[in-house]
């Protein structure tokens, strides 16, 4: 576990972030609808949700990587005292890659196919003036070494298509950590990889952030990933956080029915003869937060009071829950049938 000092100020704080997409000819889509969270140095934060929950859009908003046209961003994102949403492009370029870095989901499409690995690494080193031009290749090789790529020097001249998926993702991680950023955002870093490689890459991430006390925001839909790595977890649904808390309490006793549903739908080897219990309905069965709880159409415990006004995120025992009818304490997830 990383050393989290709860007494320090948060390094990165997102407050009431709202992102709206306006495409011509269709109604505006509120992808992120009032999300707030923060992360401290050395802390690993997990953001969990299905596709469409707004988790990726949140991470893109932090680094200002959303398209300029047709997107409206409101709220506040502060990093090390500076307000990122009102920073100029030049100021953001100084932050990206240097102070806050990002690893993306698909390493094949996220690497430039016509440039060598070495070039893509030295490029970021030299951009942020981390070292001299002559030193850059050496540094790059050291980085590749650190992420566990054998024959680092030779690999510098390889092109992305010459590497396996797992190695490409290691390169992405190397690129992200090249300038030793304070915050690393990993958006579904293992989703596109083979299962056996997934564990390796996650282990690598865990080691690296522990070594350098980097804050890590891990965005994923995979609960297994979160359970192994994160100090705190936020569960997102339809653009809002519906439950958040420290790892242990949340996994042992989830209070929001969506979280419970997510956990229950993971197939388990230790329950003999058990059926698969997916969450009923599909992500399209949703209502606006303005009309009530967005999860209501799929919730097994829905009541009349869930409709009409949106529930607020309230503290409840060890976690925060956005639900007017949360699961009671004592209903553990881990009782055998």
């Amino acid at each position, binding site marked *: 576990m990383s050393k989290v000092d709860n007494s320090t100020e948060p390094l990165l704080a997102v407050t009431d972030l709202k992102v709206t997409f306006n495409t011509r000819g*269709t*109604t505006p889509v509120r992808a992120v609808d009032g999300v707030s969270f923060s992360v401290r140095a050395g802390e690993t934060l997990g953001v969990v949700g299905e596709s469409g929950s707004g988790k990726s859009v949140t991470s893109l908003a932090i680094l200002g990587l959303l398209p300029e046209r047709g997107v409206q961003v409101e709220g506040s994102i502060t990093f090390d005292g500076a307000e990122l949403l009102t920073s100029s492009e030049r100021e953001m370029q100084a932050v990206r890659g240097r102070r806050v870095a990002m690893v993306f989901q698909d390493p094949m499409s996220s690497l430039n196919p016509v440039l060598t690995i070495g070039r893509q690494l030295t490029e970021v080193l030299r951009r942020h003036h981390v070292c001299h031009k002559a030193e850059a290749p050496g540094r790059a090789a050291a980085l590749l070494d650190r992420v566990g790529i054998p024959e680092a020097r030779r690999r510098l001249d390889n092109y992305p298509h010459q590497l396996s998926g797992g190695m490409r993702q290691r390169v992405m991680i190397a690129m992200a950590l090249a300038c030793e950023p304070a915050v690393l955002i990993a958006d579904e870093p293992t989703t596109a990889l083979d299962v056996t490689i997934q564990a390796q890459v996650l282990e690598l991430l865990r080691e690296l952030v522990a070594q350098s006390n980097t804050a890590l925001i891990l965005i994923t839909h995979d609960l297994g990933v979160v359970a192994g790595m994160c100090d705190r977890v936020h569960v997102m649904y339809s653009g809002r956080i519906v439950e958040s808390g420290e790892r242990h309490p949340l996994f042992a006793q989830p209070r929001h029915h969506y979280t419970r549903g997510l956990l229950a739908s993971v197939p388990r080897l230790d329950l003999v003869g058990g059926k698969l219990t997916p969450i009923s309905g599909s992500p399209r*069965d*949703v*209502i*606006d937060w303005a*009309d*009530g709880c967005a999860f*209501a*159409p799929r919730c097994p415990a*829905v*009541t*009349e009071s*869930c*409709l009409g006004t949106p529930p607020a995120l309230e503290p409840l025992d060890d976690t925060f829950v956005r639900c007017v009818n949360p699961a009671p304490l004592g209903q553990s997830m881990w009782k055998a049938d």
Partner: protein
Amino acid sequence: MATVQEHLQSLMGNRVVETSGSSLTRETWNRLRHNRIALVGLGVIVFFVLIAIFAPWLAPHDPRATTWFDQIRPSSVPGPSREHLLGLDESGRDMLSRILYGARASLIIGIVSLGIGASIGAAFGLLAGAFGGWVDSVIMRITDVMLAVPGLLLALSIAAVLGQSQVAVMVAVAVPNIPLFARLLRSSMLAERQKDYVNAATSVGLGRRPLVMSHIVPNSLGPMIVQGTLALATAVIDAAALSFLGLGSADPGVPEWGRMLANAQRYLNVAPHLSIIPGVVIFITVLGFNLFGEALREALDPKLRR
């Protein structure tokens, strides 16, 4: 519980529901209807076809009559006037009538040559796509060789040996289309073959011929139609180019837009209208086909969003 469900239903009904997929043709037609560029292009095409068909009734004079030759001087050719809306040409003929009849020639040559070229090309492409193997290889080598000669030059060589006639031009302009359509249909078919529905159909025992004819070919038609429209534009230009070079009808009196431009060359300084009028007419006609063809391509492509 019932009231909660009802309440939910009513709330969910408020959300915008996408219309479920209509057929491809209807969807394409819908997209086209709202595309202003497509409508402009279509309008031009329709206009061109109409004047081509009704030329004999619209033309004020006989396009071959050199009745007004006495008005021609070496350094002056009368331009647009009340009598002759588009002026006279260098042999004393009425330009308007020649343009109208020239539309006929261009339309017929364009359609016939495209029809011939596209049919033969599609036939080759069908064979190559359906049979694969050595049939495919041979056909591909042949198209490679045909494509090695730039289109107009290919047409030129063929028209040169076939003699001086409009039929020769038709055949000549048809030829460069053959490899284009062959390749197009073949690659469409190959792409379709990779798709899952083909595997599914084969696994339930569907034979080769019904598979190809009823499933693969209809799905390959889209790009062919787009190509056809754009190829028609090229055919009109190529035919005009060939008659500009002197091929085409042996009779110098026959109105052909390209030939008119060739004759205009000598009088460029004194009577630019001889060049401008047929040139602009060709331009607008071809532009119409290109605009519509491009709009059609955008409408048929599910990925494309401007």
